């Protein structure tokens, strides 16, 4: 592919460096800790998102296991009620905001720019900033485990007035709820900023010829998800602001004694909350829509309608929030309206299912591990969707709401849906990102253990719910007929845990010891597979031009045409000064630290500290902005034997903070020559 002779490119000098005081010198380290702390490379940011998300996934899973142990037998005394309440609150908050969302963001960051043929996102520093802010939020949320006040214990939707000072603060310094408020608020900032960036990137940084209707479906779903985020987060932001005002400044938004209406919190929360669940599932659907065509070796069935149905789900998602409130006595008319609107969402979702099956139909299915997860996704998501429709029928929901039936529903869509797809995605893009091949045997084994464990855990919960077991209960009596399903669910959870452990042990092993992957190992269809693995910092040596929907597939089948075009592009690009890459910066990190400090003080009701944190934030933002246009130029290594330091080899160093400073320069072994793409490419002109 990149077989253009380097000689065909004119060389050029880097522009004269600007003089600046030493604290403002630009970090230039390409390896080691500093390079990670100051990075603006979308791939590195993506990796940092991914690793933190996986860490929190394990934390959330660990919390889930504690929950399941407590529920294994009736009237268990393993956990105290209070601890149990903290656990399910943090389990949900962690899984949703610190595991699934950032894991999706990891893929948005890493894969999406590659799929549209871009060199980075539109605002690289903002991107780094979004990550650090995410980390700040994650820290704030989890600080509670280490302080006397304890972790938040109000449930993941924190219904007022349980969050008010009167009911959630056992003593003056009980800030667990404040931590929850500030943590979510900060995470909201991260998500919105990140999403604005993705929107601009997808709309504006597409390679020539990459029209909207040629965008890979994953990129489409990224775009729609980003829209959902920027349009739904404001609602919870306001709700949290109002709650914060109540707690810090004695306002009366949700204060009963002042005539406040706690139901308002529910509305504002779910105006955000329902789009949120689609924020969790749409990226997953995007991943599935990449994997199925690749391994069926034919294009996605009905591309336009899949894209359109995604948009439709996103849009309808804003009009159904009150289906979480069927039991709040909204009145028959409102209940009926939301009931029907909710059912309507089954139609565009069904369209996706049908089209995935259509994609399989007539294909040559390669049963690889990602494909297994993708097929598992269809099955499990469908079941979760059907229990969703059962909820949508409001009278039936009167019996199901806040029972284990809901717990079953949302774990089917969240694990069987989102998590399955994300696991599929990790496996699918692993060779590209880390240049190593994951073992199929261990991959498939982990799939089957996860699949069996998952169903063992959550299928019985349908019966628990219909048999009257309410959720969020730390204990239950032994005479209710709930003993055996609960026990089975606990066993299932451990099987599931083992499956996940197998999956991740395999991944970690592969990261260090796995066999090197061939280029384009799956016979991919989208542009990211055109790159060497792992991709170089600037992604594309030459900006690709796109002629068809499955751009890379087309390239592979029109080699000569593409090669000619590339030489042309390379020339015109180097005439314009070569590749400009944004330069690294400390300021995104500084700004995020300012937010961390400010919100911790605010949670502590220490306003002086909060203001100084805010000041730090503003300072960081100010220092960073005048440099926003600055950029460094780099010359692509067009020879396949390039020695590019790769993220995969040094990422673990992040965890060895002091050591890495010494180790890093020598720690990146040369990447062996990339073999020419082989598997499955048929040159046919």
């Amino acid at each position, binding site marked *: 592919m990149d077989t253009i002779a380097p000689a065909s490119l004119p060389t050029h000098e880097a522009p004269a460096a600007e003089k600046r005081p030493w604290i403002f010198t630009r970090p230039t380290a390409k390896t080691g800790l500093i390079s990670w702390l100051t990075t603006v490379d979308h791939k590195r940011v993506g990796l940092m998102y991914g690793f933190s998300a996986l860490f929190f996934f394990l934390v959330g899973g660990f919390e889930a296991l504690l929950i399941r142990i407590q529920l294994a037998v009736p009237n268990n005394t393993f956990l105290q009620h209070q601890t149990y309440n903290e656990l399910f609150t943090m389990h949900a908050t962690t899984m949703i905001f610190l595991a699934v969302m950032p894991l999706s963001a990891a893929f948005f960051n890493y894969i999406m720019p590659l799929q549209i043929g871009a060199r980075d996102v539109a605002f690289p520093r903002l991107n780094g900033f979004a990550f650090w802010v995410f980390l700040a939020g994650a820290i704030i949320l989890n600080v509670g485990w280490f302080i006397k006040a304890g972790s938040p214990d109000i449930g993941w939707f924190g219904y007022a007035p349980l969050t008010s000072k009167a009911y959630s603060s056992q003593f003056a310094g009980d800030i667990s709820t404040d931590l929850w408020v500030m943590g979510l608020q900060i995470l909201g900032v991260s998500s919105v900023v990140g999403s604005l960036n993705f929107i601009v990137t997808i709309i504006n940084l597409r390679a020539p010829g990459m029209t909207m209707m040629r965008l890979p479906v994953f990129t489409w779903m990224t775009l729609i998800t980003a829209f959902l985020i920027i349009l739904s987060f404001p609602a919870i932001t306001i709700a949290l602001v109002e709650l914060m005002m109540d707690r810090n400044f004695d306002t009366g938004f949700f204060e009963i004694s002042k005539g406040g209406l706690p139901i308002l919190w529910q509305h504002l929360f779910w105006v955000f909350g329902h789009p949120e669940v689609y924020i969790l599932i749409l990226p997953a659907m995007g991943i599935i829509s990449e994997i199925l065509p690749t391994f069926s070796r034919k294009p996605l069935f009905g591309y336009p309608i899949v894209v359109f149905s995604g948009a439709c789900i996103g849009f309808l998602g804003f009009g159904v929030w009150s289906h979480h409130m069927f039991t709040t006595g909204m009145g028959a008319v409102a209940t009926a309206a939301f009931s029907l609107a909710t059912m309507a969402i089954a139609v565009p979702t069904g369209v996706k299912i049908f089209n995935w099956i259509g994609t399989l139909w007539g294909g040559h299915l390669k049963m690889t591990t990602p494909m297994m997860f993708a097929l598992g996704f269809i099955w499990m998501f469908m079941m979760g969707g059907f229990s969703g429709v059962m909820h949508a029928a409001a009278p039936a929901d009167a019996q199901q709401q806040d029972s284990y039936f809901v717990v079953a529903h949302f774990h089917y869509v969240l694990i069987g849906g989102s998590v399955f797809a994300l696991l599929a995605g990790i496996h699918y893009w692993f060779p590209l990102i880390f240049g190593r091949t994951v073992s199929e045997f261990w991959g498939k084994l982990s799939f089957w253990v996860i699949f069996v464990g998952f169903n063992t855990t959550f299928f019985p919960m349908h019966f628990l719910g219909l048999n009257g077991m309410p959720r969020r209960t730390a204990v239950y009596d032994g005479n209710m*007929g709930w003993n055996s399903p609960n026990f089975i669910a606990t066993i299932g959870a451990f099987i599931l845990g083992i499956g996940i452990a197998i999956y991740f042990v395999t991944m970690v092993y592969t990261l260090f010891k796995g066999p090197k992957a061939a280029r384009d190992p799956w016979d991919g269809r989208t542009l990211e597979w055109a790159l060497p693995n792992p991709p170089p910092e600037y992604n594309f040596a030459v900006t690709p031009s796109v002629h068809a929907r499955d751009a890379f597939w087309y390239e592979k089948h029109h080699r000569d045409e593409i090669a000619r075009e590339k030489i042309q592009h390379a020339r015109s690009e180097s005439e314009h000064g070569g590749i400009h890459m944004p330069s690294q910066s400390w300021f995104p990190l500084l700004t995020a630290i300012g937010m961390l400090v400010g919100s911790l003080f605010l949670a502590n009701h220490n306003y002086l500290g909060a203001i100084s944190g805010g000041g730090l934030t503003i300072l960081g933002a100010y220092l960073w902005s005048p440099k926003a246009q600055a950029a460094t130029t780099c010359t692509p290594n067009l020879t396949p034997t390039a020695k590019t330091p790769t993220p995969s080899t040094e990422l673990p160093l992040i965890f060895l903070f002091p050591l890495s400073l010494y180790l890093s320069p020598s720690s990146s072994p040369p990447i062996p020559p990339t073999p020419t793409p082989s598997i499955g490419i048929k040159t046919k002109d």
Partner: protein
Amino acid sequence: MRLPAPSRIAFRQLAALSLASLASFLGGWSWIEGPQSTFDTQGPVAKSQLDVFYTTVWVTGIIFVVVAGVLTYATLKFRARNESDAHAEPPAQSHGNPFIELGLIAASVFALVIIAVPTLRAIWYTYDVPEAEKANAYEVNATGLQWWFRFDYPSEGLDNSGHLVTGNELVIPANRPVRINLRTADVIHSFWVPKLAGKVDMLPNRGNHLWLQADQPGYFWGQCAEFCGEDHAVMRFRVIALEAKDFAEWVAQQKQPARTVATNLTAEPLRIQPASLTFKRNAPGWSQEFDLNPLENWKQKQFPEKDENPALIAHGRKLFQEKSCISCHTVRGHEGVGTTAPDLTHVGARTTIAGGLLENNEANLRRWIIDPNNVKPGNKMYVGVPLGASVMPGYMLRDAKTGHLTPNIKIDNSEGAALAAYLLSLK
């Protein structure tokens, strides 16, 4: 497969065996027949909700069978069978078929209409007592408090003032629509008796209601279904439906002030043998004997115990004042005046205590009175009931700044026995 290898046979036997044991394990406890089963409906509201549920199950079940069938077929039919197959020439690169797609959309819409129609009907039916029955409906108020329920009967006025109030056990007439006004005194709770009706929330500053009807007399389990803080899990209650005659009798009995057991007050209170009660926290609060016939057991409770000890009861009554139980509880006709805790006027005639958590018997009462926190951690009797800006102290006094607890009321084993005897005598 030439000859059935021994291992294979063994495997089959093992599989059969484990299947059988699995079936018996699962079947032994039926998964849908507990005291809070939504399948075992006992009234029209729950029934209509179940009907809607079945509709959704049928429709989605059929769709599931069809879609999953096609999916399975496609997976099996088109999968690459071996390595060379996997690398064969790619299949035809087809892009879709609008007619199939539109057809499937239409089919989905049709399926949803089948669900929607009964849904809409049931929404209106379950929302409020049907017009024709309005006049016949019996009205009660239910109030949720952290973590127990107060029930009052606005139509059952008392002689001196106010109306009938009970706690944690709602007694209603069977075969007659009951309209329940739902209120809360603090956070959000939810009123759920699965066999009679789906839940409706009790929201602050909002007047919700629910209607239900028990087709037969019976004893029903209910539970708070909205997370309401530390003890949400053990905020339970019961509903007892009685024949019209029994109900009238019950109301008449309840309207009476508390029962007094005559004693010679000058007599020495008996020495009480302090039974050693080792409490395992959250050990089951129920007994299997009770579950065998709950309604009958409830009826038994309405009559005084046979082995009452009048002296002990009198001592208990005295302790009830001395230990300041009266500041939170009311025993109408006796000393209590408090309204922040369950009314205890006829507590002896109830089958449960502590928010439906424990069966009401001597041992459990004693257990609860001596060490409420061990039974129901964090309950408001232990840490005190918030009253506006201040707190009515309970067994402990809480320091508002640090949250530190200092003891306020201490009940030893023999005092507990006396109090239990007294409370049990209140039929």
